[in-house]
């Protein structure tokens, strides 16, 4: 392919345009230039890849076997010929000489230019872990990479894809379709976290797992393993090893700005260009992924098209400055519909509109700020993606269609139907409202007319919206239509503003639907916020750990700071530390250890608490693990003075010393504390054992109190010495210590399984009634044993000293500073 002879002879009248990069942006720019002025330039394109220009984004379908390479070629050899373009392929440009105005290729070829266009794209980023150079470790950027993956897939076996972003998931999908066992390792807890929020990321993960891929999130690669000179597996920082015959690194891209940098052009993350795509050298332009424009680098094609248009306009026509792009993302994995665009970090100045349809596997979220759409995440139903994207780019005021926005274009532009109430009013009487319970509109309306004037009443009478809750909005509309907006009695007390369900509904549905993760609960129960709030997250975390002992993995970020740091935060931001003193007993060794800690860490105060133990104040979060280590060494464990959990078991001296003591109250208290410590509860839980009815341990204002008498043990429940003092109710009397302990375990478990989060036993007993509690415990002769067994099962997993864990190094990030800034040393930095 040679440049055609120039028209006016001598080759001086046509300017010489040299393009570095025969990729998507480089060729598109040339097309745009030719479309405006076909004669202006004598064009040479250099491409490092030994082939014509093709549609890089379609490499994924090629890998998946849905397309062939020929089908994804954009410009064939004829196109170059017809347009008189010289293509030098398979020979990368090695150097730009700006003084001489020429480029030199790897093979030594030199080409002069009047104008130079750099379109070198980006380089896949390779994490520099040991083994990253091994044969069998590939990236996913060009056709050669695809060929390597296809060759590996031919032999079958295991593939590990590092990176759960767009590229990684498309690679995983392709390899999985080609018959490999695929494991995806993703550093973050959510797949495609740049494009998806937690909820959509969760749905995507579940779907990929259903298809047989193994998805490991929060997986940090430590090393790539080798056998016989070839990759054999991947080792994670937590020690896990995964076998691999091929490892695909898809952890991100970096603008390929090396040539520009070498040539002394202004380079930030990418080659810096102005709005006409001109670099710091007026003769040199750049487009595509290699550029940085107004501080932004892009990794998708849509912005490139805009850049190429502005470039051509400025070069050969009227300038039309490029102003940056808003991008949207779709995942090219067949059968998975996913769309995201704009800013969806959400927040207080934004309004989140969320719709979840668990039955159809749909999650939609749009983010509105100042009346304008600024972001959208769609999973499962992306039909309206383009419409949202359009609204987003135009930045039009959407206040008028705010109510209907989430239902999509057809609904929102439906004139009268834009009012959801009007749309519901228009439904026929036999239209189904609640799919789960088969309730029609007519049935709901007659139920309302018969006196069910709020959501709760409708749910309990005709069952509409009582199961999955997705029709809650419809039922609310029907209430409003039937009774008038004002007449709608305020509904039942919902858990928080994120949901229309009550605590009791949520607890019931977690069990019924076997929900085992916070995002799963939010999806299935139609949470109206993307990730809940500071009030529902801790509650859900508790409900799940109570429902699925041993299975549920605690979500630390959903816990209040005291439970996250296993100490009580104080007004000055320091912490207090309370080690357990079983039943209020202590020893010289423990007292010495506490005294030593107080001195060693300069604790400003140590105090005897109202719970019969010692509280050390003023400890910094950085020092907590060291303090605990010292206390652990003396045999002490966490006192959970900070937790919605068992606090103390207060005792009196009892029969061993006291002249009135009837039983060994101290001994029983210690045994009960050893049985119950470590258990998380809906709220804090306090126990006491008094040796006689004089009740020196104040057992009758505790959540569970034992008062020893000559003939046995009186068990008391539901007491509280706090804001509203409440004396206990007598539950029953038992004869032996063993019985007292068994009943205690059963009562605790009943409270754990039934009460609402942050409801102490006193209000709980009053709400449910003592009769209900008694019937739960005593009607069925096996109930006590079954409840106590469930408590013991839970304790198997939860009775571990959280301090010992931290001392061993767990979550050290929560305790240490990132770094320390010292201005002086900075001056020299």
């Amino acid at each position, binding site marked *: 392919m040679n440049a055609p002879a120039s028209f006016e002879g001598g080759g001086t009248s046509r300017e010489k345009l040299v393009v570095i990069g025969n990729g998507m942006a480089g060729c598109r720019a040339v097309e745009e230039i030719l479309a405006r002025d076909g004669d202006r330039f004598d064009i040479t394109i250099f491409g490092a890849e030994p082939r014509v220009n093709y549609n890089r984004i379609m490499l994924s379908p090629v890998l998946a076997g849905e397309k062939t390479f020929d089908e994804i070629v954009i410009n064939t050899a004829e196109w170059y010929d017809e347009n008189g373009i010289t293509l030098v392929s398979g020979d990368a440009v090695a150097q730009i000489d700006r003084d001489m105005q020429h480029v030199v290729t790897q093979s030594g070829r030199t080409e002069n230019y009047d104008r130079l266009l750099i379109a070198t794209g980006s380089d896949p980023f390779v994490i520099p872990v040991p083994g990253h150079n091994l044969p069998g470790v590939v990236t996913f950027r060009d056709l050669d990479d695809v060929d390597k993956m296809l060759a590996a897939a031919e032999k079958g076996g295991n593939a590990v894809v590092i990176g759960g972003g767009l590229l990684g998931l498309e690679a995983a999908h392709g390899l999985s379709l080609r018959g490999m066992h695929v494991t995806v390792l993703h550093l973050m807890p959510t797949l495609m976290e740049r494009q998806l929020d937690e909820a959509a990321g969760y749905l995507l993960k579940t779907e990929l797992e259903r298809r047989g891929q193994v998805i490991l999130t929060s997986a940090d690669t430590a090393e790539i393993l080798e056998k016989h000179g070839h990759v054999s597996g991947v080792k994670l920082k937590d020690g896990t090893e995964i076998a691999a015959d091929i490892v695909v690194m898809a952890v991100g891209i970096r603008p390929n700005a090396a040539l520009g940098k070498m040539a002394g052009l202004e380079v930030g993350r990418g080659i810096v260009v102005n709005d006409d795509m001109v670099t710091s050298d007026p003769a040199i332009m750049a487009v595509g992924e290699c550029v940085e424009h107004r501080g932004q680098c892009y990794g998708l094609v849509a912005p490139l098209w805009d850049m190429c248009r502005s470039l051509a306009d400025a070069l050969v026509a009227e300038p039309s400055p490029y102003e940056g792009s808003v991008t949207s993302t779709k995942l090219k994995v067949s059968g998975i519909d996913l769309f995201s665009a704009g800013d969806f970090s959400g927040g207080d*100045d934004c309004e989140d509109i969320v719709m979840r349809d668990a039955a159809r596997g749909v999650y939609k979220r749009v983010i509105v700020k100042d009346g304008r759409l600024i972001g959208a995440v769609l999973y499962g139903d992306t039909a309206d993606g383009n419409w949202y994207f359009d609204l987003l780019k135009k930045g039009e005021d959407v206040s008028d269609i705010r109510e209907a926005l989430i239902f999509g274009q057809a609904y929102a532009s439906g004139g009268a139907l834009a009012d959801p109430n009007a749309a519901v009013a228009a439904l026929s009487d036999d239209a189904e409202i609640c799919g789960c319970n088969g309730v029609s509109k007519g049935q709901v309306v007659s139920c309302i007319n018969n006196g069910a004037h709020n959501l709760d009443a409708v749910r309990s009478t005709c069952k509409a919206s009582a199961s999955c809750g997705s029709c809650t909005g419809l039922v609310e509309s029907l209430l409003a239509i039937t009774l008038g907006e004002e007449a709608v009695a305020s509904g039942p007390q919902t858990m928080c503003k994120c949901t229309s369900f009550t605590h009791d509904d949520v607890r019931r549905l977690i069990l019924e639907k076997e929900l085992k993760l916070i995002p799963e609960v939010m999806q299935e129960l139609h949470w109206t916020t993307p990730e809940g*709030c500071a009030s529902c997250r801790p509650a859900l975390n508790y409900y799940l750990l109570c429902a699925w002992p041993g299975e549920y993995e605690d979500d630390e*970020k959903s816990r209040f700071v005291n439970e996250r740091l296993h100490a009580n935060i104080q007004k000055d931001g320091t912490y207090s530390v309370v080690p357990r003193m079983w039943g209020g007993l202590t020893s010289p060794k423990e007292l010495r250890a506490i005294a030593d800690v107080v001195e060693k860490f300069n604790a400003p105060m140590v105090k005897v608490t109202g719970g019969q133990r010692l509280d050390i104040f003023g400890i910094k979060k950085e020092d907590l693990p060291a303090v605990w280590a010292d206390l652990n060494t003396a045999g002490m464990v966490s006192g959970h003075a900070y937790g919605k959990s068992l606090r103390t078991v207060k005792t009196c001296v009892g029969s061993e010393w006291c002249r009135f003591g009837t039983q060994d109250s101290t001994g029983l208290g210690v045994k009960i504390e050893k049985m119950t410590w470590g258990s998380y509860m809906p709220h804090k839980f306090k126990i006491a054992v008094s040796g006689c009815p004089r009740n020196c341990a104040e057992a009758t204002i505790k959540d569970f109190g034992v008062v020893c008498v000559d003939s046995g043990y009186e068990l008391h429940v539901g007491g509280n010495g706090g804001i509203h003092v409440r004396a206990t109710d007598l539950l029953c009397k038992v004869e032996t210590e063993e019985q007292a302990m068994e009943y205690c375990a059963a009562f605790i478990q009943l409270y754990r399984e039934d009460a609402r989060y942050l409801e102490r036993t006193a209000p709980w007993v009053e709400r449910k009634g003592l009769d209900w509690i008694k019937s739960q415990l005593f009607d069925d002769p096996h109930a006590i044993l079954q409840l106590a067994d469930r408590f013991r099962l839970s304790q198997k997993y939860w009775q571990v000293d959280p301090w010992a864990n931290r001392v061993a190094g767990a979550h050290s990030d929560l305790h240490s500073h*990132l*770094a320390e800034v010292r*201005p002086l040393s*900075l001056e020299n930095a």
Partner: protein
Amino acid sequence: MMSDPVGTWLDIGVTTQIAPGTARTLPVQGGAEIAVFHTIRGEFYALVNSCPHKQGPLSQGIIHGDTVTCPLHNWRISLKRGEALGDDEGCTPTIPLKVDAGRIYLQRDAVLNSRAA
């Protein structure tokens, strides 16, 4: 303080050292401690680690959306603007932050001149 011609941004390390949904702290000698937040969604923000109410350590609060709930008395503080939300009034200084190639940078002057709310 002498002004430094380069380095208007202070590199405080890689993004992975702050797990999503948590925050970590950065003491500044002669200035106020800074809290660097990583939201569940993956955004990073930095604020002076001090609640406008009674100087509670915001780094220790529960993070949801781009809001943190202060651990001391549950004020909700915007991570973007440092402002108290809802009926509460007050503002914590924000520290301009940027993430580049997997590393977190804080604006140097804002860090050095940080003052508690």
